[in-house]
């Protein structure tokens, strides 16, 4: 047999095998599963759904449907309402909470949920070996920080105890008016001890997976889909609105919009999933919902470097930023310019006014600091991270705008330094920068979530700025049981932060943008935490979709 004959035979067989393989692949890849009631585009792929480990908003929005805490967030207001605990009492000094669990609580696998599960879940989150990013949210408990720091080895000394199977007694360091909100954050929710001890890091893949929340985790395929099914044993299952929910990670805003427009997705709840170029057109549509939320965009000064060790220089730079122009020209989502750090809408708190736009005063201050007209001012760098998704390049545009404003108003020269996310965070925490773009999203609805960041020893300070008076005011505020007096103390602290010392300059308050058609989707509400509990969301019949006419017109223009 000649080589060519052999070759021909091999090729014909190979061709056959190839066709068969393709056929098998095709039939194998076609999914046979019921369609979901609701499909949600969730932004980034969750890093984890383990309540102790997760960190991003995308992670939390899924995890809070699967694991529940003593309280949960109200879908309308974002404030805490009873969850696994049906009621709780607070001692007169505000430092002891007694939670009463509901008597009908079971895991999705049928075992009862008891006070011991609360203690286990909280101690697990605090245990340094768990390496929880949000462990700090539990430091309001007595001895909790010392336990995480390894100074106390005995977990029974931490201020959480099971008084009886249905009663949890919690001791706090200070009266913490927002503690019931803390009990709704995923890091405090109930996780199944036996499953975790049996499977270790991969416990979420256990079948069956005992869950404490409204939804069972059917599967989680990375970068593909998370499917949730109603947990019939959940205490409030009668009010769980949808049976099957699909949650998809989406990396590109264009893909998100196309999927939504073709009806493949019902809800898109990440502001980053709106194509920046279409923002002005889309925001006019009735199915695009914008609302204020508790997130602030700001930049940091590295006060350990000259000339930014001089408060007058920092004030001058702050006064020369036209924030109005930045939100009108660049972000365009209806953001509010910020002169203070704590966003409007924060509970029990109104911020003092910070520095506005006053270039004349800025030039004066810069001259006082020894740089009249910017003469002799050293070149410096503004560090920012490459925007995720890369589409809108908001950070880069703002950097360029700042560069121009300072050059025109103050006569100083700034270089731009764009970095990858991990390198940027590293440089920031090592104080290896001059100015650095920053942002912060409220963990809970209270001024402390923002003002606590810039106390001298907080790991999130990252400016090198230390101010004893500021630390003292924040600490006293946190020990103050009277809400009015507490607000006054926080206001004095914030005045130091944004008017006198200015280690940071707030630029604007983010807005939340979700899109969904209210004719078809209900139970999702704008709230300041941009938090939307899954069990409340439902589809209503087959109302007519909002047609994308305006979008079509925009494309034609």
């Amino acid at each position, binding site marked *: 047999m000649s080589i060519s004959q052999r070759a021909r035979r091999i090729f014909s067989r190979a061709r056959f095998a190839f066709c068969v393989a393709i056929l098998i692949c095709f039939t194998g890849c076609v999914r046979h599963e019921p369609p979901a009631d609701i499909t949600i585009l969730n932004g980034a792929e969750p890093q984890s759904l383990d309540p102790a480990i997760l960190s991003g908003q995308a992670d939390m929005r899924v995890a809070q449907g699967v694991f529940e805490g003593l309280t949960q967030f109200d879908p309308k207001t974002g404030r805490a309402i009873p969850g696994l605990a049906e009621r709780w009492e607070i001692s007169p000094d505000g430092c002891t909470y007694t939670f009463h669990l509901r008597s009908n609580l079971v895991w999705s696998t049928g075992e009862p949920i008891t006070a011991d599960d609360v203690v286990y879940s909280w101690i697990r989150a605090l245990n340094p070996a768990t390496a929880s990013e949000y*462990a700090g949210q539990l430091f309001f408990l007595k001895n909790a920080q010392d336990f995480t720091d390894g100074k106390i080895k005995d977990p029974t000394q931490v201020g959480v105890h099971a008084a009886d199977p249905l009663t949890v007694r919690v001791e706090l360091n200070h009266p913490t008016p927002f503690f019931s909100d803390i009990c709704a954050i995923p890091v405090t929710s109930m996780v199944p001890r036996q499953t975790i001890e049996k499977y270790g890091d991969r416990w979420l893949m256990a079948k069956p997976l005992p869950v404490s929340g409204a939804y069972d985790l059917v599967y989680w395929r990375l970068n*593909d889909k998370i499917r949730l099914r109603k947990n019939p044993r959940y205490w409030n299952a009668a009010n769980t609105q949808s049976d099957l929910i699909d949650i998809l990670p989406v990396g590109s805003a264009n*893909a998100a919009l196309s999927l939504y427009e*073709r009806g493949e997705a019902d809800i898109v709840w990440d502001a980053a999933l709106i194509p920046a170029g279409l923002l002005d057109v889309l925001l006019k549509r009735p199915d695009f919902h914008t609302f204020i939320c508790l997130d602030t965009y700001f930049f940091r000064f590295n006060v350990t470097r000259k000339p930014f060790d001089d408060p007058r220089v920092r004030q001058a730079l702050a006064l020369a930023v036209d924030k109005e122009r930045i939100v009108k020209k660049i972000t365009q989502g209806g953001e509010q310019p910020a002169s203070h750090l704590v966003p409007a809408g924060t509970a029990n708190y109104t911020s003092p006014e910070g520095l506005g736009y006053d270039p004349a005063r800025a030039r004066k201050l810069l001259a006082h600091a020894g740089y009249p007209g910017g003469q002799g001012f050293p070149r410096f760098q503004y560090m920012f991270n490459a925007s995720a998704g890369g589409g809108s390049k908001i950070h880069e545009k703002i950097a360029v705008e700042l560069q121009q404003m300072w050059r025109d108003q103050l006569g100083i020269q700034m270089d731009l330094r764009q970095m990858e996310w991990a390198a940027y*965070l590293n440089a920031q925490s090592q104080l290896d920068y001059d100015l650095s773009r920053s942002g912060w999203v409220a963990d809970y609805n209270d001024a402390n979530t923002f003002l606590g960041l810039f106390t001298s020893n*907080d790991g999130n300070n990252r400016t090198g700025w230390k101010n004893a008076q500021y630390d003292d005011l924040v600490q006293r505020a946190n020990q103050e049981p009277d809400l009015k007096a507490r607000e006054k103390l926080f206001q004095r602290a914030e005045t130091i932060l944004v008017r006198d010392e200015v280690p940071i300059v707030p630029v604007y308050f983010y807005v939340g943008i979700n899109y969904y058609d209210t004719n078809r989707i209900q139970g999702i509400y704008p709230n300041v935490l941009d938090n939307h509990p899954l069990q409340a969301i439902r589809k209503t019949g087959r109302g007519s979709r909002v047609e994308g006419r305006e979008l079509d017109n925009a494309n034609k223009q």
Partner: protein
Amino acid sequence: MYFLKRLIFAVPLLLVISALAFALVHLAPGGPFDRERAPASPEIERAIKAKYHLDEPVWKQYFRYLGDLAHGDFGVSLKYRNHTVNDIIAQGLPVSMLLGALAFGFAMGVGLPVGFFTAARRGRWEDYAGSFFSMLVVCVPGFVIAPLLILLFSIKWKLLPVGLWETPWHMILPPIALGLFFAGKVARLMREGMLNAMQSEFVTAARAKGLGENRLLLRHAFRIAVLPVVSYSGPMLADLLTGSFVIENIFQIPGIGVFLVNSSLNLDYPLIVGLSLLYAILLIGLNLVVDFAYTLLDPRVKYE
């Protein structure tokens, strides 16, 4: 024998690649656990580094990695701490491979005939039209072609889904978007190969013997002309099978290509190294297959 030797040589090559990848990712500034939120306690930072052995010297980590690798264990993703790299590959690779295989089929199915006919009709309008087509698709990148296809077929005419990867209908646009570039490349290589083959002596000889033009081109010239395409198809297949960040991202396809890019941005050390190795293995393996195919196609080629 020759192929056995090549296989044995592949082992040290993979070792070098893994060592390089390992060293390079550890050199990159920042680390996988640098987060916007500072760790609540230095103890937590210490615990997490100890857990993933990041507190050890890099060479020690590397040998630990090799030890695990010998057992077929690529380690745990540092970004997605509940998933192993093996999980991620097992889940994403079949999707990317199917996408790649379809794109390969498309590239060959379009590229070979176009190349063949443009060469056979050299200098006529068919040649210019075909060459223009192949030049165009080589020059226009995927991130332009893919949205264009979506705009036409999905949004304007509503014929095909805009994304996701569920039914055969979902598997039409992405392979085309991914395969077009390679179709153009194949067409150009094929045309070139045909032109060369048609001028070679054995074709002239066959023509002198009175062989029909069609038979001459298909039977004799084609087999030689296709050789450059074959040698190109090895790296091309490796490229296609490991997925494409751009195409997977645009069409929301749960393949491995997205991880290839994102793992580097996240400094997810085990995932970066694991995927680099996977890519290397595919590239080496497919080049071997290509060389083997050469011996079958071209009687002049023999490996000792």
